C-alpha cells in the first residue's frame, strides 16, 4: 500500500509547537481528514482535530494544508505528488488551543453584534411573495458553512493590520444575506461602517479564492455592501439620483474606501 508523508503541527502554543512527521497508508479517495483519523487511531491518539460531518457540510475541519486554508475533509491526498510532504497546520488567524484546533469564539461574538433579521411589521406573511430569481442572490450568501477559512486568509485579520474592528468576510457575507433579504427592513449601514469596519477591506479577493462553497464573497457581498455604505454616508446626492433613476450607477467601490484602507 502506498504511503503519504504528513507533517502535522503538534503543540499547544506557537513557541513549543512543532511539525511532526508521519507516514500514513493511502487508500483510494482518501482525504487529509481520513489521514488525520488514521493517525489518531494508530499513532497519535490525542491528536486534536475539530471535525463533525466529513462531508463538507459543517465547516468544522478547516486547517492550512501546505499553507493554503482548506477543509481537510475535501482535500484529497491524490491532489499532491507522491513524494510531496503534506503539511497540516492550524488556522493562523485564531489563537491556538492545541494541535490543529484553534479558538474561533471571536467569530461568534462578531456574529452576535449584527442587527438581526427584521421583517416588516405591516405586511402579513400571507402576502409575502418572492420570486425564485429574487431569492437566489440571498441563497448564495446563506450557503456559507462558517468554516472561517475566509477569516483565516483575510490579511486584515490574519496580520492584525488594524486596531479598529473589522468583522471579516464571513460576517460581511452574513450581513449581505440580511441586507438583500427580500423583506428585511433593518438598516445595518452604521454597523457595517463602524463596528463592522467594512472600509478596511481593500478587495484583494483572497476570501473568495478559499471559499469551499464558491461564494463570490468580494464581488457579490462586500462590494454591494460597500456601495450601500458609501451611498448612505458619503454621497447623498448620488443616492437620491439613483433612487430617481431606479438603477445603480457604476462606481469604483475601492476608491470610496481608499482613504480608510490600511
Amino acid at each position, binding site marked *: 500500500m502506498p504511503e503519504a508523508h504528513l507533517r502535522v503541527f503538534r503543540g499547544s502554543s506557537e513557541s513549543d509547537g512543532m511539525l511532526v512527521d508521519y507516514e500514513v497508508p493511502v487508500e483510494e479517495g*482518501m482525504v487529509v481528514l481520513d489521514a488525520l483519523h488514521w493517525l489518531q487511531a494508530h499513532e497519535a491518539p*490525542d491528536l486534536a482535530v475539530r471535525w*463533525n460531518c466529513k462531508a463538507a*457540510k*459543517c465547516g468544522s475541519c478547516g486547517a492550512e494544508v501546505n499553507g493554503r486554508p482548506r477543509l481537510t475533509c475535501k482535500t484529497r491526498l491524490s491532489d499532491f505528488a507522491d513524494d510531496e510532504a503534506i503539511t497540516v497546520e492550524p488556522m493562523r488567524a485564531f489563537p491556538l488551543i492545541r494541535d490543529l*484546533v484553534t479558538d474561533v469564539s471571536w467569530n461568534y461574538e462578531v456574529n452576535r453584534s449584527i442587527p438581526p433579521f427584521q421583517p416588516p411589521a405591516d405586511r402579513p406573511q400571507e402576502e409575502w411573495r*418572492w*420570486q425564485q430569481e429574487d*431569492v437566489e442572490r440571498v441563497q448564495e450568501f446563506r450557503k456559507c458553512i462558517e468554516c472561517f477559512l475566509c477569516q483565516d486568509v483575510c490579511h486584515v485579520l490574519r496580520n492584525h493590520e488594524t486596531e479598529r474592528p473589522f468583522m471579516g468576510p464571513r460576517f460581511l457575507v452574513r450581513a449581505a444575506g440580511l441586507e438583500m433579504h427580500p423583506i428585511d427592513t433593518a438598516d445595518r449601514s452604521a454597523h457595517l461602517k463602524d463596528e463592522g469596519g467594512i472600509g478596511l477591506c481593500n478587495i484583494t479577493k483572497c476570501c473568495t479564492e478559499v471559499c469551499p462553497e464558491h461564494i463570490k464573497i468580494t464581488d457579490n457581498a462586500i462590494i454591494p455592501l460597500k456601495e450601500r455604505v458609501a451611498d448612505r454616508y458619503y454621497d447623498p446626492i448620488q443616492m437620491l439620483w439613483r433612487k430617481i433613476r431606479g438603477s445603480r450607477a457604476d462606481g469604483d467601490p475601492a476608491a470610496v474606501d481608499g482613504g480608510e484602507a490600511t
Partner: protein
Amino acid sequence: MNDAVERHPHDVLVVGAGGAGLRAAIEASERGASVGLVCKSLLGKAHTVMAEGGVAAALAHVAAEDSWQVHFRDTMIGGKLLNNPRMAELHAREAPDRVRELERWGAVFDRTADGRILQRPFGGHTHPRLAHVGDRTGLEMIRTLQDKAVASGIDVYMECTITHLLTQPDRVAGAFGYWRATGRPVVFPAKSIVLATGGIGRAYEVSSNSWEYSGDGHALACLAGAELIDMEFVQFHPTGMVWPPGVRGILVTEAVRGEGGILRNRDGERFMWKYLPDDRRQEYAATDEEAARWVDAQSAARSTDARRPPELSTRDNVARAIYTEVRKGRGSPHGGVFLDISYLPADHVRRKLPSMYEQFKELADVDITAGPMEVGPTTHYIMGGIRVDAETGATTRRGVFAAGEVAGGMHGANRLGGNSLSDLLVFGQRTGAAAAAAAAAETEFRHIDPVQVRLAERELSAPFDRPGAESPYRLHEELRATMQSLVGIFRTEADLDEAIARIGALRARWANVGVSGGRPYNPGWDLVFEVRNMLVVSEAIARSAQQRRESRGAHSRLDFTGLDPAWARLNSVVRQSGDLIEVTTAPLPDVPAELQRLITMERTDA
C-alpha cells in the same frame, strides 16, 4: 473538592444544539425561562446541518389537495402503524406553522412560480410536501434557528460534553460534563433538562452520521433510569456513497430520486419495479412512461395525474431492494447499484442538487450530470429513542424531557424522508414550552449530590491513570464491526446472540480503557465516554431486535419474515436494571376512531 467545580444554574438546560435543541431553547426562553444550551461541537455544526432534501409539511402549495390528514396517514403507513398516533397527529397538524415560522425568522426557501414556499416529492409522501432550499435544507434551518437563538440571549456553552445526569431519588437535578478545550469539569444545576442529542450512527461502520452521533442522550437517559422504546428500528438510508472507500456512507439525498433519479442494477434493469409491496403498488406508476410523465410534471412544478416512480417507495423497502440486488450479484463494480439523474438537463440537475453535484465531482470524480452515481445503504437514523409523552416530550424520569431524533415514538418502524426536520421543529417547540412550564412550577433548584459529582469526576479522570490499557479507538472499531455485520439490515437470532455476547465483552473491556496525553482537547478521551454511550445503545438495539420476532419497517429478520399481528400493537421497551439492560414490551397507545378512519381512507386523487 468538588466545591471548586464551576456551576451554571439554569431553569432549563438543553443538551444538544441541532434543530430540536435550538427550537426547544428558543421556546423556553420566549416563555421566560433562563436557558442554557450545551453542545459538544461549535454552535451551528450539529448534525441537522447535513439534512438535505427538505422539511415535510402539508402547506399544500404545490398540491392543493394535500392536508394534515393525508400527511398523518402517510406517516402512519410509512411507520407500519407502530407510530405513537398522537405524536404523528400533532406533527402533521403543526408542521406547517413551524415551517412558516422559520420564514418569519428569516429562512429563505425555494419558491413556487407564484412566489410561495416550493415543495418537492419524497418517498412515501402522497403529495409534493417537502419545503426545501436546493439540497441544503438543514443548513438553512440550523442557521435560521441559530440566529434566532443568539438574538434571544440564550447562554450557549460550546464544545462542552455532558457525561452524567445528576439525580435525586424522585427526579433529575442537573448535569455534569467537561469543557473540551480545557478538560475542566462543569456542573449545570437545572430544573428541567431537555435531551436533544440526535442519533447513534457512529456505532456502525457505514454511516451518514457525523462525529456527534454516539447516542449520548439515549445513554444518559437510560443510565439515569428513563425508558427507551423501539430501539430495534434503525433506518438504513438506501443511498449513500460507496466509492471511493474514504467517502463510503456519505449521504446521497433522497431528493435525487424525488427529482427523478432512476435506480438500475448491473444489467441496466430498473429493479424497483420488482420490490413494490403489493398492497401499495397502486400508489406508484405502472410503467416507465407513466413515471417519466410524473418526472416531467415534477421538473416543471405542475400537478399531474401520473403516479410517482417506484424509486420513491419508502426507505426501508428501497434499502432492502438495493441490498438484495447486490447480494444476488447484480451490483455495481464497487458493491452498490446505479442511481441516474443524468438524463435530465445538466443545468436543471445542478440547480436542484448543487451539493450532490459538488460532492460527487470533488470526492469521487463523478459528474452526476453526465453519468450515474454508485450508491448503497448507509446507517442514517434511529426511529427508536427515549420514551416520551406526546404532548410535552416528558420522559419517564421526572425533570427530563427529550425531543428530536433522541426521542422515540413519532416515526414508528420506519421514518419518511423530510419528517425528521419537521419532527425537530414541532416537538422542539412543544418540549421547550413544557420544560419551561415545569421549571416555573419548581420554586428552587434541587440539591446537587456532591458524592455523585465526585464519582463523575473520578470516572472522568480514571482513563488517564491507565495509559497503555485498552484503546478507545480499538473498542470503537470492534463495536462498529459488530453492529455492521450482525445488527444490520437483515438480522437473525444467531447473529443477534453473537452481537449481544460481543457487546457484553466490550463493555467489560471498557472498564479498563486508558488514554494518553493531557485533558485539553483530547479526542481519545472524548471517545471514552462516547464508546460508553454507544455500548449502551448498541446493546439496547441488539436486545430489542432479538425480542421482536417479526419483520416490520426497518427491522428485518431473515428467520421471521413478514409482519406478525401479535407484534402489531407492541412497542419494545428498554430500561437499565442494575448493570443490566432489560427489554420488555408495552402496548401501543390506542388510535382514536377518527384517526383510524384517516389511516384506512383510500386515496381520492389516484
